[in-house]
């Protein structure tokens, strides 16, 4: 159970808005393997291919046999908390502003020692714990000692909560609330305790089934937002940009065409205009204000979520131009991440597999329901991840892509036949 956060007091307008600080962001290149896994919510450590020795901190060669064949493997994180301290002094501003911190030494069953944050729910050493990995506010992996049993949330620890982007009590823009996915996300965010949800609506003359029900949510406020229209995006940013804590980019134009199946570029342009330029317009108008408010009290600007597609990783020829537009958006999201990271604002990308909607009608199951996708989004905000692959198809694709991108390209190429 997460603590119930009361609606925070309004900000005193004569006080200076606090500026963001970050935990130390520097890591060696080899240590970024830990970050890559933590971005997906996984604990991976280096393991020697030749002798099986587990390594930590990350190394260039095996500490046991000097082999250079070290690979990152998932770990269960089981171990013993052997010592702990509560830090009351810190050198970095980020930690100093949030003292004290509970830090411990954990001896993993794989015979490596890790230094880790210790969750509030963990008892005094010596005791069994489970190490998890999450991203800290600098976007780097942080190891956390959790109780061996039970699964307390990061949110339940007042310090580790800082690693999350909890939607509770926050003001959130959902850029397109008309699509089935957009509607499900609005509902999920409302259920997660969002304080206010601006629901973007383009082409208001087009009705969307189920949309009117959203208006009954007490947090909902429908706003005009057409991400293909720079003026519209600018107008809305001018109106609410200084209040938005989380932007959820749900705009998605999905047409199921391969490049040969659709003459001309008009449809591809529309996909690009919404999926890529739409993100660009939103980012140009909303990101600066998010950065400026990244340390603004307890309900600060904290996250940006993009609903991308697993097709962003590798082109799915039956939806070829759509895949390309999502790949472009994915690329731009990395730019956005680089822009927002110095402020500690996390960019979370969701890469769902086929969704149970009209444009994936001809895709074979398993398909993701909009509600499942929305639940994955809320989980991501409540956790410490930035790359989310919801659903079995997405999980399958990302594994295949990691293992052999060329093989995946060839396999997907076969789907046109």
């Amino acid at each position: 159970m997460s603590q119930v956060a009361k609606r925070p007091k309004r900000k005193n307008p004569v006080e200076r808005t606090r500026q963001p600080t970050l935990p130390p962001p520097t890591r060696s290149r080899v240590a970024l393997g830990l970050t890559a896994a933590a971005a997906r919510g996984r604990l991976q450590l280096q393991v020697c291919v030749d002798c099986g020795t587990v390594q930590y901190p990350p190394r260039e060669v095996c500490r046991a046999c000097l082999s250079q064949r070290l690979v990152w493997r998932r770990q269960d994180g089981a171990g013993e908390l052997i010592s702990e301290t509560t830090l009351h002094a810190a050198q970095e501003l980020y930690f100093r502003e949030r003292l004290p911190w509970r830090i411990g030494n954990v001896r993993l069953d794989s015979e490596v020692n890790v230094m880790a944050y210790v969750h509030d729910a963990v008892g005094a050493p010596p005791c069994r714990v489970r190490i998890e990995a999450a991203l800290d506010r600098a976007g780097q992996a942080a190891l956390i000692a959790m109780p061996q049993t039970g699964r307390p949330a990061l949110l339940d620890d007042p310090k580790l909560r800082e690693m999350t982007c909890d939607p509770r009590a926050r003001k959130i823009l959902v850029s397109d609330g008309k699509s089935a996915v957009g509607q499900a996300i609005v509902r999920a965010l409302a259920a997660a305790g969002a304080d206010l949800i601006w629901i973007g609506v383009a082409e208001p003359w087009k009705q969307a089934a189920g949309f009117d029900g959203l208006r009954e949510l007490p947090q909902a406020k429908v706003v005009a937002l057409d991400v293909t229209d720079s003026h519209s995006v600018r107008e809305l940013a001018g109106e609410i940009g200084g209040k938005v804590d989380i932007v959820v980019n749900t705009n998605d134009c999905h047409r199921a065409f391969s490049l040969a199946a659709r003459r001309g570029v008009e449809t591809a342009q529309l996909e690009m205009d919404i999926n890529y330029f739409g993100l660009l317009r939103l980012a140009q108008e909303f990101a600066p204000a998010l950065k400026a408010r990244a340390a603004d009290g307890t309900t600060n600007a904290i996250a940006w979520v993009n609903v991308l597609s697993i097709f962003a990783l590798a082109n799915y020829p039956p939806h070829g131009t759509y895949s390309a537009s999502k790949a472009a958006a994915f690329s731009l999201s990395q730019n956005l991440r680089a822009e927002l990271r110095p402020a500690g604002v996390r960019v979370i990308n969701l890469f769902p597999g086929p969704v149970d909607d009209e444009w994936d009608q001809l895709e074979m199951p398993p398909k993701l329901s909009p509600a499942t996708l929305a639940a994955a989004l809320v989980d991501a905000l409540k956790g410490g991840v930035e790359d989310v692959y919801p659903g079995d198809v997405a999980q399958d694709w990302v594994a295949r892509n990691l293992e052999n991108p060329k093989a995946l390209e060839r396999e997907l190429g076969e789907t046109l036949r």
Partner: protein
Amino acid sequence: MKAAKKKSTRKKSTAKAKVRAPARRERANLSDMLISGGAHLVDLTQTLSPDFPTIVLPPEFGQCRPFRMEEVSRYDERGPGWYWNNVSFGEHSGTHFDAPIHWISGRDLPNNSVDTLPLAHFIAPACVIDCSAQAKADSDFLLTAAHVKQWEQRHGRIPVGAWVLMRTDWSKRKDPVTYQNLDDTGQHTPGPDPDCVRFLANERDVLGFGTETIGTDAGQAAHFTPPYPCHYYMHGAGKYGLQCLCNLDLLPATGAFIVAAPLKILQGSGSPLRAFAIVPAK
């Protein structure tokens, strides 16, 4: 093919003759008339803005790109002393002109695209049929040939080569939602019925048909026989369309001249334009 050519030639010459006569008479004093109050101008054009709705088609069809505007510079680092925009739009966005080539029925006519239309057609007399009361009562109101004949009884026979403009006061609907007036059975906006269109094209040899709504056809015209009769018959007969007009309530039933010159787009099917009326004093 031969008939079409002949028809077109005839229309061309009559339209030319029709326009030339008043032009010759009034050339010397048009500006005097405007200054003295002998005539005034009425803007028939909606502002071309990104908010202005475009025609709604099922999403699997190609879509008319709405008007969009991207700032190039505004006295800033992108251009320190000047302000300008790049704009993009479909040919059928905002207050716009439809050329015969727009419809499959007019695709083989000569001079059927906006770049090849006779210049003389860009100024023509207007007959304004006031349907505002009926449209107010019924969004799906259809103008019939009988209505037109009734109008002729009061205002005289529609001259050859004239614009027939259907006034519905639809342009006064400033909220795009009520302007589009869509529900899950489609759009509900007034327009002409198929007989009416045939009557105007064949028996009155008009220059074209103009409306205040988003199309020259009624909102439900996809279900007519043939579908979209105003597009089908008018363009098939080499006639034009004007849509998203406004201020038709400021025009007399007869006597006004419409200036409606589309952009000269190579093989263009239509274009947004600045349409206005010259209204001589009674």
